[in-house]
């Protein structure tokens, strides 16, 4: 029984109510917008090779987002979620981890998957739900996943990955693996019951999981001041007894530093860590959303000045690790690559009809196979009504 608080806490004889804001939570900033470091700031472990890979991933992220939002507007993909303005949180997180660490993301962390090497073609196959999609065309665009890359397939219900990450990390710990789990979620998802359940389970059972909150200011249209009161999401981490840090989420060096240290701590102490990355969702929540309905241009412009990709570019330029010629070559190359991949992916066949019943169970049970057989017969009778699958029966 934990009697520490009763026996050893300070005692007063007049009532004292504690305000959340009386717990001061500092914010880690390493890199300034102009590419110079804050005085006394410590760099994460990073060299030119890693920095270049990180920067190229950020560039790919931005190009993919731009192209896919455009493709959605043209009606080529049904839906897209961009991460404009907060790319540093996912790319920086993945860059600070080892390949064997599991990433359990929400839906705006495609940057981590890019960093792990998910190819342009793989992104497209998922978004066009063709037969080469690893998810077999079953989920809406942006629900990526890859077993090979240790990136758990995205689930739409919000926050469900949080207690799952605690369990996943607990399993890694029991096996004595040199691996942790990082769990991404937004500040909106932190209102879900699963957030509280997951943090508590990890804290009590000492699971080596890094809870990474992207506090991007908006949950669809609800601003964070209508989402929670108190001292951000970080204070909740503290409340659950989870070691917590707040960082500038638009500062990729701060992200990398925090995640590197968090990983080290989680493994060594076999315990969870929480990171609250303060950022801003510059774009819409999704292509189904229009932020002009709930916030001002001025507010967005203010945050454009904190562009995380530009900030890292400025640092790369200052290190003489990058130049403008490389910059334009990179972006032009990426734009061509993405466009070409769109054209290929949209022509690839949809999954075969059998995939409708595969993977519901390990083996389709009789009632499911019977239902599929009946459906196939029906489609054969009216092939024109089901053009996607009828030709392949």
């Amino acid at each position, binding site marked *: 029984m934990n009697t520490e608080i009763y026996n050893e806490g300070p005692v007063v004889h007049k009532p004292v109510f504690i305000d959340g804001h009386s717990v001061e939570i500092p914010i880690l900033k390493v890199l300034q917008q102009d590419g110079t470091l804050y005085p006394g700031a410590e760099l994460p472990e990073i060299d030119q090779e890693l920095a270049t890979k990180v920067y190229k991933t950020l560039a790919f992220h931005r190009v993919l987002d731009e192209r896919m939002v455009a493709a959605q507007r043209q009606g080529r993909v049904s839906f897209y979620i961009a991460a404009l303005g907060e790319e540093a949180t996912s790319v920086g997180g993945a860059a600070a981890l080892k390949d064997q660490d*599991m990433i*359990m993301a929400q839906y705006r962390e495609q940057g981590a998957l890019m960093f792990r090497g998910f190819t342009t073609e793989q992104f497209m196959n998922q978004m066009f739900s063709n037969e080469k*999609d*690893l*998810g*077999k065309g*079953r*989920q809406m665009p942006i*629900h990526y*996943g*890859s*077993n090979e890359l240790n990136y*758990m*397939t995205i*689930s739409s*219900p919000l926050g*469900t990955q*949080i*207690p*799952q*990450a*605690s*369990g*996943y*990390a*607990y*399993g*890694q710990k*029991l096996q004595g693996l040199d691996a942790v*789990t990082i769990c991404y979620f937004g500040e909106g998802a932190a209102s879900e*019951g*699963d957030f*509280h*359940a*997951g943090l*508590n*389970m990890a804290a*009590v*059972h000492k699971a080596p999981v890094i809870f990474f909150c992207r506090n991007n200011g908006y949950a669809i249209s609800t601003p964070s001041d209508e989402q929670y009161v108190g001292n951000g999401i970080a204070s909740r981490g503290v409340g659950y007894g989870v070691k917590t840090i707040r960082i500038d989420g638009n500062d990729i060096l701060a992200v990398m530093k925090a995640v590197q240290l968090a990983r080290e701590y989680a493994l060594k102490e076999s315990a969870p860590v929480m990171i609250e990355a303060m950022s801003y969702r510059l774009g819409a929540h999704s292509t189904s959303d229009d932020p002009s309905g709930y916030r001002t241009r001025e507010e967005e412009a203010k945050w454009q000045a904190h562009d995380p990709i530009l900030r890292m570019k400025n640092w790369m330029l200052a290190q003489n690790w990058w130049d403008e010629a490389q910059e334009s070559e990179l972006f032009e190359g990426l734009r061509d690559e993405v466009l070409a991949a769109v054209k290929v992916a949209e022509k690839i066949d949809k999954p075969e009809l059998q995939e409708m019943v*595969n*993977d*519901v*169970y*390990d083996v389709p*049970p*009789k*009632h*499911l196979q019977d239902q599929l057989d009946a459906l196939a017969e029906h489609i054969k009778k009216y092939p024109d009504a089901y053009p996607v699958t009828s030709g392949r029966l």
Partner: protein
Amino acid sequence: MAQMNLLQAINNALDIAMADNDRALCFGEDVGHFGGVFRATSGLQDKYGKERCFNTPLTEQGIIGFANGLAAQGSVPIAEIQFADYIFPAFDQIVNESAKFRYRSGNEFNVGNLTIRSPYGGGIAGGLYHSQSPEAYFTHTPGLKVVVPRNPYQAKGLLLASIRDDNPVIFFEPKRLYRASTGEVPEEDYQLPLGKADVVSTGDDITLLAWGAQMEIMEKAAEMASADGISCEVIDLRSILPWDVETVANSVMKTGRLVISHEAPVTSGFAGEIAATIQQECFLHLESPIERVCGLDTPYPLAQEKEYIPDHLKVYEAIKRSINY
């Protein structure tokens, strides 16, 4: 063979599963040192350590979310929800996550190793929050298996099969029977097949179908009917999802009549699903409408529990209605 009650059989199955696979874990509220409120996990923490058998905080959604993560990682979680009535806070983790993990990821990931155990059902003066039979809710969700044993022998064999099945399984234990009686249970490791019904006794005039604790009532009603010269075929469904249509349909084609009974409310209960399927499979063989003897469409009452329960007398009346139709 040993004499075991249903709880001892479950404890024995868990013991075997944990000894057999060092990645198997048991956890839930009060499951650790105390052995669970019904003592299903007694002795397991002493034997396998606190890392593999432990108490969790009071968070059903946390327990199942945690279990989903463990299963996705390759561990073999056996999670306990203390009462089936309290499984609903975990509903999202079960129906949207456990059930769909493999499908939505194209089998990149799965939680097939997951087993959820939970005591269900009434007859213990438990009132509306300690008596529910929620199996039908989960049968509406593709991707899950739902299993209910009726005696100690089945409990052990079906639980071991559930733990080793490569799909998430919800295993509802009839708590009224936990200590009600003992039965012969082999001490060694054995499994009973999932998805297969058990013909408990054969008969020619009418088929009686139920599962779990309700089987006792069916057998009692069959005895009463037998005194009237009515020969009942009694079938235990055992696996509610997927369920053994073939065995039930074959029986009904022979007898021409069917009575289905469960404790849960009649509306949208699983008896409705069975009736629909059997009338399709056996329409020309049916001699009378399929009878459902179920709970009322009320919350499970406390003071009037005896009136509420679909007991042997209600089943007996249904048998006679069917025979005399």
